[in-house]
C-alpha cells in the first residue's frame, strides 16, 4: 500500500500532478458549494466551454493556455448579464448562446491552428499528468486570489445567496456581488480545466458539493466538506490514472460520483 502511494512520487511530473489535483480538489468544490445552492450549474458548464477560444489563442501565440483562459473566462462571465439585459432574454438563453458560440469559436480556432501540435482530446478531457510548472504557478496564484475573494465577500455572498431582495433593500449592490462570484467561478474553472478538461470540470464543481450538501447542514460546513471530498476524489483519481493507465479526468469524476452514490443512497436533504 505504501508503495502504491509513494512510487508515483518519484516522478517530478507526478508531484506536479499531485499538487494540481489537490488544488482542483479543494478549489472547484469550494465554489461548487455556491453552484449547487444557487443553481449555477448551467453557467458553470457554460463558462468551462466558453474559455476554449482563450486556450486556443494561448496555443497559437505561445502563451500558457491556462493564463490565456483567465481573461476569456472573466469576459464571458461579464457578457452573460450584459447580453441577457440588452436583448431582454432570460439569463439561461443568454448563457446558451454564449456557451455554444464561444465553444464553436474555440473548436474553429483549434482546427485552423495546423502549425502547432494540440491534442484536442487533452483540452476536452484534461491531462493533469502533463501539467506544466507554469500551469501549477497559475493555479497557485488563482487559488490565492479566489480564497481572498471568498473571504472578503463571504458575508455579502451569504446574504445575496439567501435573500437577494433583502440584500438589495439594505443598499447592497447585488449585481456586483453576483459578478464577483462569476469571476471567481471563471478563475476556478481555469484551475479545473487543466486537470479535468473542459467537459469534466463540471463534475468537480458539482459532485463533491452536492455530496456535502447531503451530509452536513450549514453552508460553511458544506464548503469545507466538499473541499475534503473533492481532494479525496481528485487524488484517488490521479493514483488510479497512474497505476492503471486510465485517463485522469474521468477517473476523478467517477471516484467523486461513487462517493455521491454511496451518500445519496442513505441521505436525503430536506428543505423548506
Amino acid at each position, binding site marked *: 500500500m505504501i508503495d502504491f502511494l509513494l512510487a508515483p512520487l518519484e516522478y517530478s511530473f507526478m508531484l506536479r500532478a499531485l499538487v494540481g489535483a489537490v488544488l482542483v480538489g479543494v478549489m472547484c468544490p469550494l465554489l461548487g458549494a455556491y453552484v449547487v*445552492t*444557487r*443553481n449555477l450549474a448551467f453557467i458553470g458548464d457554460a463558462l468551462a466551454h466558453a474559455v476554449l477560444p482563450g486556450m486556443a489563442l494561448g496555443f497559437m501565440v505561445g502563451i500558457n493556455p491556462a493564463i490565456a483562459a483567465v481573461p476569456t473566462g472573466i469576459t464571458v462571465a461579464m457578457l452573460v448579464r450584459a447580453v441577457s439585459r440588452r436583448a431582454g432574454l432570460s439569463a439561461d438563453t443568454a448563457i446558451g448562446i454564449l456557451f455554444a458560440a464561444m465553444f464553436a469559436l474555440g473548436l474553429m480556432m483549434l482546427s485552423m491552428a495546423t502549425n502547432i501540435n494540440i491534442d484536442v482530446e487533452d483540452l476536452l478531457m484534461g491531462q493533469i499528468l502533463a501539467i506544466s510548472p507554469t500551469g501549477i504557478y497559475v493555479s497557485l496564484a488563482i487559488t490565492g486570489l479566489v480564497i481572498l475573494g471568498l473571504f*472578503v*465577500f463571504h*458575508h*455579502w455572498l*451569504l*446574504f445575496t*445567496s*439567501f*435573500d*437577494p*431582495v*433583502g*440584500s*438589495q*433593500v*439594505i*443598499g*447592497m449592490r447585488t449585481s456586483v456581488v453576483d459578478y464577483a462570484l462569476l469571476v471567481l467561478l471563471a478563475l476556478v474553472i481555469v484551475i479545473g480545466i487543466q486537470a479535468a478538461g473542459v467537459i469534466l470540470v463540471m463534475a468537480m464543481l458539482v459532485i463533491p458539493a452536492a455530496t456535502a*450538501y447531503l451530509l452536513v*447542514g*450549514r*453552508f460553511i460546513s*458544506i464548503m469545507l466538506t466538499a473541499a475534503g471530498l473533492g481532494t479525496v476524489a481528485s487524488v484517488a483519481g490521479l493514483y488510479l490514472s497512474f497505476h492503471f493507465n486510465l485517463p485522469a479526468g474521468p477517473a476523478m469524476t467517477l471516484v467523486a460520483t461513487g462517493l455521491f452514490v454511496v451518500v445519496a443512497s442513505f441521505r436525503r436533504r*430536506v*428543505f*423548506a
Partner: protein
Amino acid sequence: MNAATDSHHHASMSLQDVTVELDGYIALTNVTFNVGAGTLMGVVGPNGAGKSTLFNTIAGLLPVGQGSVTLNRVDLRRGALAYVPQRDSVNWRFPVNVMDVVLMGRCCRLGWLRRPGRKDRELVRECLCRVGLWDYRSSLMTELSGGQRQRVFVARALAQEASVLLLDEAFSGVDAGAQEVLVEVLQALRDEGRIVLLATHDLNNLSRRFDQVLCLNRHVCACGAPSQVFTPEVMEELYGVQFSMDGEG
C-alpha cells in the same frame, strides 16, 4: 439600555402622490399618507391591490414614477430600512442557520472588508433574545416554523438598527398563536419609536391590533385608526362585497 433596545428611532415617513407603473399598467395611483414615529401600520387590501408594489417602492426596489417617498429625520445612511421578505423570495436551498441570518443585518454597518466582531455578535445575541429565539441560534432556517422564521427576520432588522420595518405578507402560513407572538414583538419595536408596516390580504382579528390601517386598492381607500377605517363603505370599496369585521365577507 442596550444597543438592541435603545430608543433613538424617531423616523417619520411620508408618501406624496406616489404613482407607480409596472409593465405598462398603473399599479398605484396617487398614494399619499404619513406615518409618524412609533406606529404599527397595517396595509390591507385584496390580492393585486398593490401592497407589494407599495413596499417595493418604499424599499427602493422599484422606481417612483411620480411623487415622492421621504423619510423625515431618518439618518439616510444605508440600512435605515429593513425588509422582512415574502416566503418565496428567499432561496431556501441555501443553508444558513439563525445566527448567520441575523448577522446579515450587520453587513451594511461593516462594509466590505470588516468582519463581524465581538460587539456584532453580542448585538445579535440581544436581538435573538428579544424575539425569543436565542435557543434556536444554531438551527438551520429550514428547521424553523413559519412564525419563527419571520421572527428571525425581525431580529435581523433589529441587528441592522433599522428605523423602518416592512413586512410583506408576514402572516401567511403562520398559525394564530405564532401571529400573536409576532405582533407582540412588533408592538415592542413600535414602542421604541420604530415605524412598522405590515401588509396582509387577510383581514383577521389582528387587524384590530394595528395603530393605523392603510386600506389599499391601487389607490388609498382609507387611512387611519382601525375603528375609523373599517367601515362597510371602505370594505366594499376594498373587496367589492358587503363585509362584517366580526366575520367573513
